[in-house]
């Protein structure tokens, strides 16, 4: 069934659960280094651990104060109320990636609740998404299933456990049901997650890299026949690891459920697994509201009781909300509607902004991120932000704008940056990429080129200035591209008349 037909028959209702890994230096409840902190994502398995992460007998959790501050900031940015007293609770279930066989989370007393978030769609429409709660918890370890064909647990011979991620601080943000999205429901889901990503980056509380799992989204989807009040049975789709997948997964689930319902079938309440490659979801485990996690207050920890002063201090330090920020940036940068929207939609707003803040012109910053970096990232199937930092790009732009690099040389410098050869300045030095600004060397090359092409020389002398191109090309080639073409042109015209 096509999407429009599905929408004609049913109203989609979505709900989103977003997990944000906080980038604190240490973990939620232990002094172990946090693999979700900047630059620490590639540690060898089971090296970022303490007895607490392994749940060794006798070990005890201690709350990371910074993680609490980050969580409060995030709650405030989501328009939530901050609980004067909130409590950790144990969620009990056996799974080998969960060292203690319970997860320390928050249950009926979350740190933040009752918020809302304005989300801007691609055409500029603003949708208000109601937030039910945001609570703190710890991440689980990671299982690698070995010996099966699919890499999943079914059919595997054995599984390896890496507890580096065990105890990474998480905030789980849960929306209320989002009604009225209609055919835009998939886009709303995507825009909502993108907005949360922008917020946590602006707050500096998460690396927010979806491909690394810093930001994860579970999408709940249900359909109800037009005119029906009662909500339909929902499914929860997991493993949605990019903004694009969120939109696709929600769209797929709407169509899949519509086919079943229209055929007289019923939806099974279950988790579903998103397959990026095939673009479909498959059944996971059945999930009922009766899942019994035997929650009870965590007796090893005291309630979290942030002072009013702290909450107000964090509120005062909040960055601009994304929508307001965009309006301001668009004006500051002097971009047209389409130009700016392209940057926003590419997800590179933060990179462009930081590049400009580091000294690049707005036009150049946009050109590098949207052009060269996006092209290389696309070819390598990675995120542009993983290739270079805004500071590095700004340094390259400044070198170009001061005439020390040509665009062509700058691209070679970027290549070096991506290869990890050092700072742009170091790469210019090491690779010998500096523009030749020694007129003596240029004049020698020009004279040689003119002498070898008398016909061109004659044309130039005749006033056919465009003929100079052939000589400029030869000179640039002789200089291995490391010359400022404009200066070469000036000198060619000068020497031709000599």
């Amino acid at each position, binding site marked *: 069934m096509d999407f429009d037909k599905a929408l004609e028959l049913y109203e989609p209702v979505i709900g989103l659960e977003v997990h944000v890994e906080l980038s604190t230096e240490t973990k939620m409840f232990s002094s172990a280094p946090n693999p979700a902190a900047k630059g620490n994502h590639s540690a060898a398995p089971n090296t970022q651990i303490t007895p607490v992460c392994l749940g060794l007998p006798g070990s005890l959790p201690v709350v990371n104060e910074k993680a609490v501050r980050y969580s409060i900031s995030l709650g405030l940015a989501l328009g939530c109320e901050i609980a004067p007293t909130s409590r950790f609770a144990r969620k009990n279930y056996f799974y080998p990636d969960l060292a203690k066989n319970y997860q320390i989370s928050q249950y009926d007393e979350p740190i933040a609740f009752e918020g809302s978030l304005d989300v801007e769609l691609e055409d500029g429409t603003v949708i208000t998404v109601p937030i039910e709660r945001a609570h703190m918890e710890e991440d689980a370890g990671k299982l690698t299933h070995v010996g099966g064909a699919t890499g999943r647990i079914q059919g595997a011979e054995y599984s390896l456990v890496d507890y580096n991620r065990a105890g990474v601080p998480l905030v789980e943000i849960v929306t209320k049901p989002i009604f009225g999205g209609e055919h835009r429901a998939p886009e709303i889901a995507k825009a909502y997650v993108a907005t949360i990503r922008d917020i946590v980056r602006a707050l500096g509380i998460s690396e927010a890299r979806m491909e690394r799992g810093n930001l994860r989204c579970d999408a709940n989807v249900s359909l109800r026949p037009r005119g029906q009040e009662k909500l339909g049975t929902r499914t929860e789709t997991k493993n949605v690891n990019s903004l694009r997948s969120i939109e696709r997964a929600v769209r797929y689930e709407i169509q899949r459920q519509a086919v079943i319902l229209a055929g007289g079938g019923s939806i099974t309440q279950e988790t579903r697994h998103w397959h990026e490659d095939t673009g479909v979801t498959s059944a996971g485990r059945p999930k009922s509201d009766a899942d*019994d996690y*035997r929650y009870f207050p965590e007796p090893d920890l005291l309630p979290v009781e942030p002072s009013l002063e702290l909450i107000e201090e964090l509120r005062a330090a909040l960055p601009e909300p994304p929508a307001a920020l965009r309006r301001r940036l668009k004006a500051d940068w002097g971009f047209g509607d389409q130009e700016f929207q392209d940057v926003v939609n590419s997800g590179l707003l933060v990179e462009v902004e930081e590049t400009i803040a580091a000294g690049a012109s707005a036009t150049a910053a946009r050109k590098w991120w949207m052009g060269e970096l996006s092209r290389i990232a696309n070819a390598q199937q990675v995120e542009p932000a993983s290739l270079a930092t805004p500071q590095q790009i700004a340094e390259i732009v400044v070198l170009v704008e001061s005439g020390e690099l040509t665009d062509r040389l700058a691209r070679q410098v970027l290549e070096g940056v991506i290869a990890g050869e050092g700072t742009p300045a170091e790469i210019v030095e090491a690779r010998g990429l500096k523009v030749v600004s020694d007129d003596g060397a240029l004049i020698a090359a020009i004279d040689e080129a003119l002498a070898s092409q008398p016909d061109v020389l004659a044309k130039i002398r005749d006033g056919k200035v465009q003929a100079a191109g052939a000589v400029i090309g030869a000179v640039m080639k002789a200089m291995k591209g490391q010359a400022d073409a404009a200066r070469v042109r000036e000198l060619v015209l000068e020497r031709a008349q000599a």
Partner: protein
Amino acid sequence: MSDLTRLTAAELSAGLTAGEFTSVDATQAHLDRIAAVDGDVHAYLHVNAAALAEAEAVDARRAAGEQLPELAGVPVAIKDVLCTIGMPSTAGSKMLEGWVPPYDATVVERMKAAGLIALGKTNMDEFAMGSSTEHSAFGPTRNPWNLERIPGGSGGGSAAAVAAFEAPFALGSDTGGSIRQPAAVTGSVGVKPTYGGVSRYGAIALASSLDQVGPVSRTVLDSALLHDVIGGHDPKDSTSLKDAWPSFAEAARAGKRDGSLKGLRVGVVKQIAGGEGFQAGVTQRFGESLELLADAGAEIVEVSAPNFEYAVAAYYLILPAEASSNLAKFDSVRFGLRVTPEGGGTVEQVMAATREAGLGDEVKRRIILGTYALSAGYYDAYYGSAQKVRTLIQQDFSNAFEQADVLVSPAAPTTAFKLGEKLDDPLAMYLNDITTIPANLAGVPGIGLPMGLAPEDGLPVGIQFMAPAREDARLYTVGAALEQLLEERWGGPLLSQAPDLAASSMLAVSDGAI
């Protein structure tokens, strides 16, 4: 040289400081004693092979003129619930047989920093669940007063080690009486500090909101000295109090001065002072102790704690609930026993087979109870109600402490029962902690010390004092005062009346296996 195992920790400390003997002498004396009697008593699960080397190191520092902490060189025993680098820490369970932790419990770290010499790890009911040490996976400990009797539990090993002169003092843990009840039935002293007064980091958790580490000894002063070493804030335990604590040793010494009991209001808690379930000899010695206190100038008042009646019931919901969660980590994935079903199995099957084989009946019983109490639909009726009772008990304490400076009761309702006597009757076993459980539920400190022998069976009976939270010092003062009055009456420490184990061990051998 006199028998060094007969000296208290305070006396050992003085002798070491004066150069009368060395830490090696003191440690060797205790190792010899362990070798002589522990075959019968079975107080230890593990003896520290490095004890003498550690003692030598302390002696060398002393010889070099170093200023050492007061207890440096004095030996100590450690309950096996505490994590120790270099010694297995099993909590009395097959699940952890041979498991050597990569870290020391905070109390062990502090004990080492004070120069104390670890003699070894003492026996206990598996995961501290029990009142007789019969639930140890490694065989029961026997009461030094009568080897056919239980030494109390769960810390029967620490209490028996101290009572059998196999250690001058020991570390224990008390969740519902595991320090105080064994002290009562072995004629020794034990203190459960204020909840949060001593770090729980590295104590293998039974019930996190009730567990507290504390000292076991033969004298009140020795418990105070050990408490001074292990107490105080620990950033690794979030429930640890940040208070500055007074010297408990000083509080104990103050108790021995004339007039220390004058004007002290001692509240007899009506609900746990006697009556049904209390042995006659316990009630008799309790009455005599109250008279001694009154004669010394204390004011004896009766107080009522109406909700204590529900304490055991509430405790046996809260404890199993927390324990069911705390013990979930014993799943074979990261450490400890692993049992793979024949022909292999999924991780769930391996976990189930391991827990089936590695956990004892009492542990399974409580895990099932606790899992049930926390289940959806039952939570409010069980765990929720129990927490409300807990609040009511705390209010009872608050009310009682308006009328009295300390509360008093027998430390246990009976003397040591026979091995096996209550093994098939868990409820009867649970009721043995009726006097000690309220203090854990309220987080207040309690001390148990000997108050004599029951005339009917000649076995020790103990008295318990409780103080408001953070007022542990008061217990040491009152405890030391009463101890002095009683010893004057007895003509020496109660334990000097205990049978000579070295002789009985010969009997045991001639009798065949015990």
